[in-house]
């Protein structure tokens, strides 16, 4: 990755760009090259980024969405503090999450026996912790609106909260897609937590964000920026694909 991109960057520099000034045009050219040439190292980094973040979103959704729906329909003492706590947890600093997960998964920590530290699995765990509050809070917001619309009707059919939760999740699935995308965005853009628990190991736990951090550390700012552009392109593609899917499904339902 470095050699190829380096060559491209050098070409740009010979064309009159000073080597010391990070040049956005040069970075753009390098990013384009990284994508079109299908650089293998970059490809494996991209693949791992997507695997880790998709998996984290899926697992967080298993907990977060039902929790959000439950908070939307159920009324019980302690609901408001729970909602406030969820809101606050949306702003969890990734570094703190990384540190907590590190201490938990460390060989000297309580879950050390799993041997997960410095593996992709550890990064999934950290991202799940980070985005579950986001999914729960945002889905509660979305579904509360739906519940206000249909709640009366559902209750008249004798629906208990336990029955209403799956119904709401199903009816709100198109809006919930946006919630999932918000979670994916946060997970894939995050660097502090995955750096600590993954260790940024080449070919094993290096993802887009940690690769960008490493190239910045090396002072190779154009290459770092190029990788950042690749990441943006991927996130854009994922969002476009999700939107397309949503439109198609909605049209089919009329």
């Amino acid at each position, binding site marked *: 990755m*470095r050699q190829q991109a380096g060559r491209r960057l050098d070409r740009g520099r010979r064309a009159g760009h000073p*080597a*010391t000034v*990070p040049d956005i045009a040069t970075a753009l050219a390098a990013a384009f090259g990284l994508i079109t040439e299908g650089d293998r190292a970059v490809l494996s980094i991209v693949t791992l980024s997507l*695997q*880790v973040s*998709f*998996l984290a979103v*899926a*697992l967080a*959704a*298993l907990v977060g*969405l039902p929790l959000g729906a439950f908070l939307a329909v159920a009324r019980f003492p302690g609901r408001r503090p729970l909602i406030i706590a969820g809101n606050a947890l949306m702003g969890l600093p990734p570094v703190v999450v990384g540190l907590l997960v590190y201490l938990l998964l*460390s*060989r*000297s*920590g309580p879950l*050390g026996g799993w*041997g*997960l*530290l*410095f*593996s*992709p*699995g550890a990064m*999934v765990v950290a991202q799940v912790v980070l985005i579950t509050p986001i999914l729960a809070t945002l889905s509660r917001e979305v579904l509360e609106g739906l519940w206000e619309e249909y709640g009366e009707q559902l209750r008249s059919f004798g629906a208990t909260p336990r029955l209403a939760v799956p119904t709401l*999740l199903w009816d709100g*699935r198109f809006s919930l897609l946006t919630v999932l995308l918000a979670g994916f965005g946060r997970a894939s853009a995050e660097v502090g937590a995955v750096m600590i628990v993954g*260790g*940024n*190991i*080449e070919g*094993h*736990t290096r993802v887009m964000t940690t690769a960008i951090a*490493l190239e*910045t*550390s*090396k*002072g*190779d*700012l154009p290459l770092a920026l190029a990788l950042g552009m690749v990441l943006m392109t991927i996130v854009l593609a994922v969002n476009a694909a999700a939107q397309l899917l949503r439109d198609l499904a909605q049209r089919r339902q009329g």
Partner: protein
Amino acid sequence: MIALSRRALPLLLALPARAQSSSITIASTTSTEQSGLFSHILPSFRDATGIAARVIAPGTGQALDVGRRGDADVVLVHDRPAEEAFVAAGFGGPRRHVMFNDFVLVGPATDPAAIAGLSDASEALRRIATKRAGFVSRGDRSGTHAAELRLWRLAGLDPTMGRGNWYREVGQGMGPALNTAAAQDAYILSDRGTWIAFRNRQALRILVEGEERLFNQYGVMLVNPARHPHIRAAEGQVFIDWLLSDAGQQAIAGYRIGGEQLFFPNARQPEPVS
């Protein structure tokens, strides 16, 4: 969503399962990683032994912590006193010396403290402190940070008196610290390897080098498997033996950027007293 998780769950199991092949984890310094040394020598090691080596590079202080906690099999760092304390406390060892390079005092070409070409690092630091010229410190308990603090002590100075003013502790790796120094036209102590590989130098130049006290020795230790039974001691020892062998030492010597050698193997010579 349920369909997604059904496909995703085997993936979750597959991700950690990849770690089961023969591999070791090495905790090391930002200088060995960010200079590109590991990317150069580890493929040769894997070809020779079939063992994959994974490197995490948080800096010497944290790398030793990672070893203490049993989260790495081998520690390769550069702070002899800290390494000897690590071994003495029974966390690993024995310590073997592997290679050296040297530190360089880097600063802006305009050189406001007029230290260029000095042959005495202490005198250079004294002039920087007198001028209250900007100095970026790693501030992260790394090997380079420890070396920097030793140099200040040798100069009879306490730089923390300039804290919040001209003495700036960034608490980051060598690369980010160099980025900061480049942006602020400040002085900084760097290991030569990272400096050679560093691409964002702007106005920074090497101003003081080649002094005895700027010597930088790297040592390697196996984490004590008696403390942490899951440590891959056999594979870790294979790595250390390879690193100290002719093949490993030649791989280190063969790493060059622009024709310049970054690290000098010295496992076969007695370790210089620093």
